[in-house]
Each structure stands twice: as C-alpha cells, then as structure tokens.
C-alpha cells in the first residue's frame, strides 16, 4: 500500500477544491448530536454546547427545544434568548422569517425529524434547517437514530414498532460535525424496550457515526491531496474463480465484514474460453456475491497477481481471501504458485487461503 504519497493535484482539482471551500465558507455549519434512544441526553448536550459557545462570545439563540420543565436542561435553557415558534399555525414550527431577521451566528434546534404542521413553508424541520444553513446561519441540532430513514427498517425490526417522521441519511452525511451521545441502556427513557434491543440500537448508532467520521476522513485526505489509507476499517477482498468454494468464501467474508463493520469486495478474473459448465458456476458465484451486497470488480490483464494487488491498494483492502492453488484452477495459467506470489508481493495486509471446491 502507498505510504503518504503526496501527489501533485491537477489545476482542475485545485479549482474544485477552492470552489468547494468557498461555498463551505458561505454556508452555515451543521452540527448534529445523534442518540440511539430518548433520554440519553441529546438536548442537554446541545444546550451545553450552546452555553459554552455563548461564553466564548458567539451569538447563540434557541429556536426549538423539547419541552423541559425541570432538571439540568431546564436550568441551561434559562440563559438563552429564544426565538418563539411561528404564530398562526397549529403545532410548533420554526419561525424562519423571524430567525432570519434576528440573524444569529448559531441557532439551536432540537428534534431534526419533526414534521411541520400543514401549511408550513417546508414539510419537515430538517428542510427548515437546510434553508437556514443556506442563508449562512449555523445550526446545532439533535436526532434520534429511529428517525434516520435508511436505518428505519432495521430499527423497526428491533423495536417492533414504526415511527412516521424521518430524516434522510444523506442530510446527516453532509453535516460538518456529528457527535454521538452515548449512555448505557438503563439510563434511557425507554421502559418498553429490553436492554438487548437498546444495545442493538446503540451499536447501529455508533457504527453510523463511525461511517460519517470515515467519510469525513477520506474527504479531508482528498482535500489535502494525501493518498493514504488509514485502515481503521476492515475491508475484505474475496477473489473467486469457477473453481472457488465461493459460497464459503463470500459467506465468510460477509460475516467477517459485518462483525468488523467493514466493507466487502468480490473480484473475479475475466477468462476467455470458459467451458459452459465453468461459465454457469461463475455466474452462480457472482449471483452469490451480489446477494451478499459486495462491491463487484472484474480484473483483466496478463499479470493477475499484480491486478489483484492494484485493486487492493486502490480500495485500501486489509484482507484478501483466495482459494488454494490447484492444477485445475485458473491459477496455473500464470507461471508458478500464484498464491505464494500474492503472499510475497503483498505488503501490509492479510492473505487468507481457503480450501478449493473438491473436484468431482
């Protein structure tokens, strides 16, 4: 794998970078506190962050907060200027014109997934937040995992109940900052949930945050022209042929990727003159790979070991799964001991060798 190679960026890349940075500067900044259940302390964290920023002289107002009557959050709330909710509408919606007129540097907005009352400018609160960001006001907000649209099927399967409101994950992924509000299950206000259910939700929230951090890290490295893999995530590449024990290898790869919350790639090597039987096996193997929602790659070229290692370097692979070299495999098309060459030529990753499918 390449170590800290600083590639000179092309003029187009530089231009794109400058443009991206400029538009980032005009836009308000978005910070999200993510919790896996209610009662973990999201609102408190939001207000506490607002308090600290106010102490540092920043202009902070509250535009929406969950009703709190007592406790530390209520005490914190007293110190803030509040822009009241929009008048003339049933329910509680942000008063966008009033916020724009007040024009604070930072606006605290609880409950990102809130659905606005009918007749409001936007259907959802996250769209209001988007408008504020676009007009240069920074927002600190909170969201509960159960409202993130892409996570809803799995969250609902765990909780056994559905919620109506949602925020698209893409909105979270473009946040400048996301912080997890973590707490043990017993401190949540979810008396109806078992601790195993809450642990499963907690795991999903932590992994989601890790994915956002990963995306930001990659983005940072790109912006700074650093081509470097940090390898905090396990990324598994399974190389298959018609002769591979593909079910075992892909199944094992999927399971390991899941356990490590990593990513799975399946590569196959384009071969001419496949027998119809081999063609059918390969197609079946590829279907298995698709079913396991692996990223698929087709490799070409004379030197297949080099092609695999190139792909591994590109994708920051940490483990390569290959089948045993056998006379019957495609491997013997290359001069000598391709698995051994793979081991010798690779650096900084694991090679896991699987038994081949027994030859009938």
């Amino acid at each position, binding site marked *: 794998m390449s170590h800290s190679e600083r590639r000179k960026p092309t003029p187009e890349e530089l231009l794109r970078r400058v443009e991206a940075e400029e538009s980032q500067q005009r836009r308000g900044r978005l910070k999200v506190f993510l919790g896996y259940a209610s009662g973990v302390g999201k609102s408190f964290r939001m207000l506490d962050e607002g308090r600290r920023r106010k102490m540092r002289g920043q202009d902070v107002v509250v535009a929406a907060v969950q009703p709190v009557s007592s406790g530390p959050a209520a005490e914190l709330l007293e110190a803030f200027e509040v822009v009241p909710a929009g008048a003339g509408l049933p329910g509680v919606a942000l008063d966008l014109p009033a916020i724009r007129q007040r024009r604070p540097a930072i606006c605290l907005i609880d409950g990102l997934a809130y659905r606005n009352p009918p007749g409001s400018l936007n259907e959802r609160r996250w769209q209001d937040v988007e408008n504020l960001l676009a007009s240069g006001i920074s927002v600190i907000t909170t969201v509960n995992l159960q409202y993130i649209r892409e996570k809803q099927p799995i969250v609902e399967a765990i909780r056994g109940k559905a919620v109506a409101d949602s925020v698209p994950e893409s909105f979270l992924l473009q946040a400048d900052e996301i912080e997890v509000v973590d707490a043990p299950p017993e401190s949540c206000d979810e008396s109806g949930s078992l601790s195993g259910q809450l642990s499963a939700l*907690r*795991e999903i929230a932590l992994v989601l945050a890790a994915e956002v951090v990963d995306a930001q890290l990659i983005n940072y490295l790109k912006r700074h022209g650093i081509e470097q893999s940090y390898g*905090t*995530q396990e990324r598994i590449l399974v190389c298959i042929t018609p002769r591979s024990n593909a079910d075992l290898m892909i199944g094992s790869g999927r399971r390991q990727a899941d356990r490590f919350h990593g990513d799975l790639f399946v590569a196959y090597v384009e071969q001419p003159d496949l027998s119809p039987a081999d063609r059918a096996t390969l197609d079946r193997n590829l279907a298995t790979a698709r079913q396991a929602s692996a990223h698929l790659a087709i490799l070409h070229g004379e030197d297949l070991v080099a092609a695999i290692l190139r792909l591994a370097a590109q994708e920051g692979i940490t483990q390569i799964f290959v089948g045993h070299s056998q006379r019957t495999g495609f491997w013997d098309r290359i001069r000598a*001991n391709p698995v*051994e060459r793979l081991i010798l030529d690779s650096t900084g990753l694991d090679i*896991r060798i699987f038994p081949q499918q027994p030859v009938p």
Partner: protein
Amino acid sequence: MPPIEPIRTEGRLKIVLGYAAGVGKTFRMLDEGQRLASAGHDVVIGYFEPHGRQDTIARTEGLETIPRRRIAYRERTFEEMDTDAILARHPEICLVDEFPHTNVPGSARAKRWEDVMALLAAGIDVLTTMNIQHLESLNDQVREISGVQVRETIPDWILKRADEIVLVDLTPGALLNRLDRGVVYAPAKAQLAKENFFKEPILAALREMALRQTAHEVDPRQSMDHERILIHVTHAPSAAGLIRRGRRVADYLHAECFAVCVPPEPGLNHLPAGEREALERHLDFARKLHIETRILDAGDPADALVAFARTNAITQIFLAKPKRPRFPPLSAGYQFVRKVIRLALDIQVTVVAERPPHAY
C-alpha cells in the same frame, strides 16, 4: 430443582472510553461520581489526574479523595494510587483515572489495571477512564495510523470483563479548539502535542476506532460459527503483531483462540538464549491475552502445526508473513509458510503481514 444463582461478590467495572486526552473522560467520570454520591452511594476518588484543568477539578468538590501513596524510586518520589488504603476504607464505588497507567517500580502491582482488579475482587465497584489507543490488540493499528508505539496497554479481555462501557465522543475539530484555548495542556505541551499526536486525520482515525470498538463491545449477537483459531508463535519480532491480530479476529468472530510453538528439539532449553527469551516472552504475551498456549513436540514445524490443527478441529491457522527473501526457494521462512499452506488443504490459513507505520 433449578440451580441457585451464585451471589455476585465481585465489584462492577465501568469504563469511560475516549480517543485522546481532553475529550472529557475524567469530567464524565467525576460527573457520574457526583450523581451517584448525591443519590446516596458511598463514592471515593481513588486516583484523579487534574492536568491543571479547572472545570474538571471543580467536579471533584465534595467527593472524598483517598490520598496517594508516595514511592521512592531512584532518588525521586513518585505518587501512585494507594490500593491498600482504598481496600481498608472499602467504599461502595471507587473512581480511578487513567486505567492503563504503569506503576513505578517498587509498587505492589506493575499496572493500575491490576490494582483495579484487586478492588473489584474485594467487591468494590470501579469507574475508570481510558483511551482506545491503549487497547492491546489495536497496538499495531495505532502505530500504523499515528506513528506512535503505545507502551501502556490494556489486554482486551479486561474490556470484555467490563460490565459497562460508555463512549465520550467529541469531534477532532472541537478537541483541537480546546487544545488551542489551553484547556487540555499548558501552551508548551499543547504545541508539542499538535506536532505529534494531535493532527486532525490521526484524531479522526482514532475516533473512528473508538466508535467501532464501542459498537463491537455493545453488540448483543452471539457466535454461531464455531471457529477455532490457531496462532503459530516464534521468536521472531513479527510474532507479537501476529498474536494481537489473531486475538482481535478471534474476538470479533467470537472464536476460540490457541497459540503453539514448535521448537526444533524437545523443550526450549537448547535454544540460543536470545531466541528462547523472545519465544518465552511471546508465549507469555499470548497467555496475558487469555490465549491457551502449547509447546509442541519437536519435529518438522509445518507437519507438527498442521497435525495439531487437525486433531484439535482448528478452522484457521495464523502465520506471520516471512520477510521477502531474495531467492525464495532457499528461504526457510518462506518454505515453511509454503509447506503449511500445501499441507492444510482442508484448513484455512491466514498469512499476516506487519503493518508499516504511515510516515508523514
């Protein structure tokens, strides 16, 4: 008659996990201590590292502190947690900062985590703090990311032993702000930190590791794969990384983990002193990570290893990748790996390469 549950006599261990100094672990620990004390529990501070942080120091107010023990070493006086005094005082809950700390020579126990084990054994609940980079199995990955070899480590089984883990999350941007404002360290130390560990991509990568590790620790899923991993231990320096890697994969797959070495002649006594020492150190290291170890009867190492794997229903053998030889057919290390792969036709073999540190 149903079996009677034994009464739990050991204390509960709770770990507050972070990814760097200054994210707020100690504050969170003290905050929780205050909350427990005001709920009527008997809470004492066993060890607290103030780092001159005023708002953290303020959180100790009203909590009883057990004075540190003074230990003379090489004409200087050091202060350590006074475990005997805490045991004598026998509180219900003890707060212990900096879990991975190594005690000064002359202390009753080498590591603070061993002191904590003594408190737990006496039935005292412990609330403690640590950073992700001190987890033993992540040692190589942390070096790869940061270029820093962390010396003070916590074996992974202690995290498994913890009754609760809670993550303190903070974005690297916010942490770097804290560092700039002088909240984390005094100015000279802050500047030094920024030149080394406190760089945005390093912090982001460590944060991602902390999120993923916590997600893994709260994962309620149980294993259904019945994997059994066998690690081949030698005197070579690469063995330490191999043991960590094998342990980590075994933990994630909920697999059983074993380690063996195969000396060329019976016993270890005939080995050159340096080799024997290194080999014993590695076996000892494996045992510290709760890996069952065996010294196999002398013989051909590849034959002995695969035979042991087969009789013990091992599913995966872990080997260190040999250094790239100039002429592979003459390299003993390379021939060994090659022979194991060829013999282990029905067992998976994983060849683990060392992870080079990223320099920048």
